[in-house]
């Protein structure tokens, strides 16, 4: 398929490499030319140095023929607007955005976009591994390609509602072995317990502690790096 990737940071460059290896026709857009240095030398797709929201830039990247678009810059506003335009103006069927700052998840939700938050998701995974060592995945973590982990899941509400829309907690938490190992909460209708992975409306409300799974003792945890991931892990 033809895929457009907006933003050539680490996420965009990695995504471009993976999709290219998968045999897809990839075009990467970034407004800073030096960003393309993130791309692996093995990347064979196109690069366009331009402001992604500039008039005609998406068309130059082939948005009319694209089957998919990923907006993965480090600006939630740019990601959301690019995704919205790609979907509503150009009718791209498959659009995914990156939610960079968890506080801005509300924007992606308001536009009805499928958003992936590497910040909140990453911080939450780290917190889980620190608090509940039994959840440690059995795969080789160095590759980052896949992992097999047991998750605490909540069933989606009636009618297969997505997690972001089912903010009521009618369905009691239940262990679902079927969801173990799947990566995407939006696809499975399940999402891991704890802060971060849920929608912005839940922000600030602590979810109930999970059942004891190995991390009952209080720990002294040092987090090296006070960036977004580090602050979120707190």
């Amino acid at each position, binding site marked *: 398929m033809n895929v457009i990737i907006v933003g050539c940071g680490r996420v965009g460059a990695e995504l471009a490499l993976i999709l290219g290896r998968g045999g897809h026709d990839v075009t990467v857009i970034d407004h800073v030319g030096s960003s393309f240095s993130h791309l692996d030398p093995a990347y064979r797709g196109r690069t366009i140095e331009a*402001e992604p*929201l*500039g*008039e005609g830039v998406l068309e130059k990247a082939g948005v009319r023929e694209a089957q998919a678009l990923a907006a993965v810059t480090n*600006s*939630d*506003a*740019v990601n*959301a*607007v690019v995704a*919205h*335009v790609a979907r*509503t*103006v150009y009718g791209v069927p498959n659009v995914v955005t990156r939610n960079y700052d968890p*506080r*801005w998840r*509300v*924007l992606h939700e*308001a*536009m009805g976009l499928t958003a992936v938050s590497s910040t909140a998701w990453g911080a939450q995974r780290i917190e889980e591994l620190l608090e509940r060592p039994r959840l440690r995945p059995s795969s080789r973590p160095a590759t980052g390609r896949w992992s097999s982990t047991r998750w605490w899941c909540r069933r989606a509400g009636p009618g297969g509602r997505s997690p972001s829309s089912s903010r009521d907690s009618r369905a009691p938490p239940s262990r679902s072995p079927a969801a173990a190992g799947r990566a995407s909460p939006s696809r499975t209708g399940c999402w891991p317990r704890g802060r971060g992975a849920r929608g*912005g409306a839940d922000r600030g409300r602590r979810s109930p502690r999970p059942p004891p799974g190995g991390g009952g003792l209080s720990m002294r945890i040092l987090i090296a790096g006070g960036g977004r991931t580090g602050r979120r892990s707190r």
Partner: protein
Amino acid sequence: MEHRPNVLAHIHRELPTELIYEGNPTDPRTLELARVADAQVLVASMSNDAENLSLCFIARERFAVPRTIATINDPRFAWLFGPASTWTWR
């Protein structure tokens, strides 16, 4: 709503304190603090056009502000605000 210290110092000299909300306007917490839901009009005059557009969208969608106005700093972005785009307000 403003969060840059140098700009805040400037507007504190020109405006009464009760009219100023300190915080980043792109942070939903600042919007709640400033009671955006009670506003009849929201003007997005930040330097980032995508943020202006997003802020107007959030104000309409999440806070039901009936009228939103945004500035366009970069003419290359003007098409986003025009008839070419389909910003459907519910």
